[in-house]
């Protein structure tokens, strides 16, 4: 059986069993039943209950072995001690069991119970997810443990050892435009590990980008071997918890396993072309850039043009980008001359970074941007253009369509030269409700056009730097000459 076949029932189950739902309908598993129905799950749902005839309007069954059809996915949230016996009695009737309950290996007194749990899953003939996790979110299978999340199938496959962080990735990713091929929370990883799902996502045709949140990898060697053999065919972004001594102690109490070593993870990233990040925001930012921009190993991102309003912002960003290894080099004379010929209003800086006060940007309702960027892209061949708009300054001074026109201008310039430069948008705000509302509306439009949108120049910078390191890795190691 291939890895795709092995995990197909998990990502697109035809039958789901739910253990722990009560006939009164208030327990977490009842909420799970409600959510997957709302999410459009069309297969059979089998509540498992020792006594009730019916739960949430569905016929209930006594054990996992009693359901009319075999169970592709079982969601289990009852007290820890009773679960092993339940699994071993399944007699090959269950493909995947996800144990939400805690009280296993993450606490000293639950270690033995976790060993029992793993043995019971093996005896019952199933693969085990968890324990101590929150569930799965799989839009292709219409199963979700979170309240909100995009309904359509996207390109990002995620494995998170932490359940809560998995929720954060989906919820925060939503407004940023992240779309997922699946997200699995694994908790203690007693049986199925991040390496197993990494292997699946690498093979999975829906998945183009992979995100991992890992606290401890007991099978670090296997993870390395899988990544090494994959030859960076898909970008893999790794958020590693427990890299410092203090973080390590927190990780040990969180998932109850030994944490790896920072230098080993740094080495792994360099050798496999994976991107190592250290915060949730960077994980989301980096996944976004890989979702929206096609890596160009033929010419890894180096030359960046900054274009927008805010002189200090441009200067600080230039410094920051230089430290990241991105080159915001001043334009050559011919570009400056061509820009000067546009006779832009005073206060406009026509070298790189191109700093345009709002007065300039709103010329011709924003269409001026097309003339500027045309010159810049035709003669300067930048690898990336970062357009940054400080919306606080636009508010109350310009008509809303100016913003649209600015972005459309950039897209038109880009479309004239396909594959030449990445386009990234930074929408800066001061947090005032009016500005925030305008930013949200505008961001949604841009996201719908497939543009990566960031809150600040720094976020866009480290995301471009991640893209650069991936492109460089491919260009150095994986490009076949000719």
């Amino acid at each position, binding site marked *: 059986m291939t890895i795709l076949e092995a995990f197909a029932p998990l990502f697109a189950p035809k039958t789901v069993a739910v253990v722990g739902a009560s006939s009164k309908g208030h327990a977490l598993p009842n909420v799970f039943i409600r959510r997957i129905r709302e999410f459009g799950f069309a297969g059979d749902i089998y509540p498992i209950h020792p006594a009730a005839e019916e739960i949430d309007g569905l016929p209930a069954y006594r054990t996992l072995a009693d359901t009319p059809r075999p169970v592709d996915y079982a969601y289990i949230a009852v007290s820890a001690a009773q679960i092993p016996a339940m699994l071993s009695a399944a007699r090959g009737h269950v493909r995947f069991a996800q144990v939400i309950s805690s009280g296993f290996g993450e606490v000293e007194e639950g270690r033995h119970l976790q060993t029992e749990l793993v043995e019971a899953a093996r005896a019952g003939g199933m693969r085990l997810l968890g324990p101590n996790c929150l569930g799965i979110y799989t839009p292709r299978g219409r199963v979700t443990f979170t309240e909100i999340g995009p309904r359509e199938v996207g390109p990002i496959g995620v494995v998170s050892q932490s359940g809560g962080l998995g929720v954060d990735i989906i919820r925060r990713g939503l407004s940023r435009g992240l779309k997922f091929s699946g997200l699995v929370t694994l908790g203690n990883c007693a049986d199925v590990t991040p390496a197993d799902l990494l292997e699946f996502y690498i093979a999975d045709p829906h998945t183009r980008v992979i995100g991992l949140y890992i606290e*401890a*990898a*007991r*099978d*670090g*060697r296997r993870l*390395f071997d899988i990544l090494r053999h994959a030859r960076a065919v898909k970008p893999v972004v790794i958020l590693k918890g427990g890299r410092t001594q203090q973080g390590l102690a927190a990780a040990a109490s969180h998932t109850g396993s*030994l944490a*790896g*070593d920072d*230098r*080993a993870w*740094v*080495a*792994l990233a*360099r*050798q496999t072309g994976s991107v190592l990040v250290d915060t949730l925001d960077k994980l989301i930012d980096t996944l976004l850039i890989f979702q929206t921009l096609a890596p160009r190993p033929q010419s890894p991102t180096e030359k960046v043009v900054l274009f927008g309003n805010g002189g200090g912002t441009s200067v600080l960003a230039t410094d920051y980008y230089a430290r990241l290894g991105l080159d915001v080099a001043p334009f050559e004379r011919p570009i400056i001359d061509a820009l000067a010929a546009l006779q832009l209003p005073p206060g406009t800086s026509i070298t790189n970074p191109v700093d345009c006060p709002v007065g300039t940007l709103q010329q011709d309702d924003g269409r001026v941007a097309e003339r500027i960027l045309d010159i810049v892209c035709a003669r300067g061949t930048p690898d990336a253009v970062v357009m940054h708009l400080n919306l606080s300054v636009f508010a109350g001074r310009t008509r809303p369509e100016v913003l649209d026109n600015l972005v459309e201008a950039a897209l038109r310039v880009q479309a004239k030269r396909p594959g030449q430069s990445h386009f990234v948008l930074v929408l800066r705000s001061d947090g005032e409700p009016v500005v925030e509302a305008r930013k949200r509306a505008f961001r949604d439009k841009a996201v719908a056009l497939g543009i990566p949108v960031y809150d600040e120049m720094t976020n866009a910078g480290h995301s471009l730097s991640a893209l650069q390191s991936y492109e460089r890795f491919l260009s*150095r*190691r994986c490009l076949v000459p000719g």
Partner: protein
Amino acid sequence: MESMDEDPVSAARRAGRHAIDERAGKRLLSSYGVTVPRSRVVTRVEDVDAAMSALKTPVVVKVMSPDILHKSDVGGVKLHLHSALEVASAIRCMRDDPRIEGARIDGFLIEEMAPAGHELVVGGLRDPQFGPLIMVGLGGIFVEVLKDVSFRLCPISRIDAEEMLAELKGAALLQGARGTTPASIDAIIEVLLNVGGEQGLLMQHAADICEADINPLIVSDTAAIAVDARFILG
């Protein structure tokens, strides 16, 4: 001492040792293609003449003893010896040294001295989750104070080895910055691959070697020579 034909790792294991001594460690390195100084072992001063006829001067003499961990701290290393006479006298001095007298002595190692060059450190380490890692750094203060080292998981490829060296902060020194003779980057890369590559020493003995130290690896513009080596088993 282990016989010449037995693999030094198995021999040390069989003898119940937790480390491989310098001479056996060098034989192990040599069997993986790493250059080590030519050497002879003598147990008696009378044998020095014969040993020296096979070696080029200058040489170094080192005491070999399972009881002495840091040879140079107890006067167990004598450098820059140019004749059999000087070697014999160095051995007598060591024997009479009160810090060495009481130790079990396996013999005295007479080694050709490596020509001057850049001092590097190549190390190995077994990580509980990832298995063997290889490390490289520039010797002396670069390793000890500045921690200017880079790690990779084994097995490493040629590109990995090149990138390991390139990411050292002191990389420019190897290219001959500050008027020094450039080090042979190719020779260093060969050592890294012989130690940490797919067929390298650390991968082949992953089950037995938990730490390795080649310190120093002396690199001239043509060659890299492992001048001292230690392997910890476990």
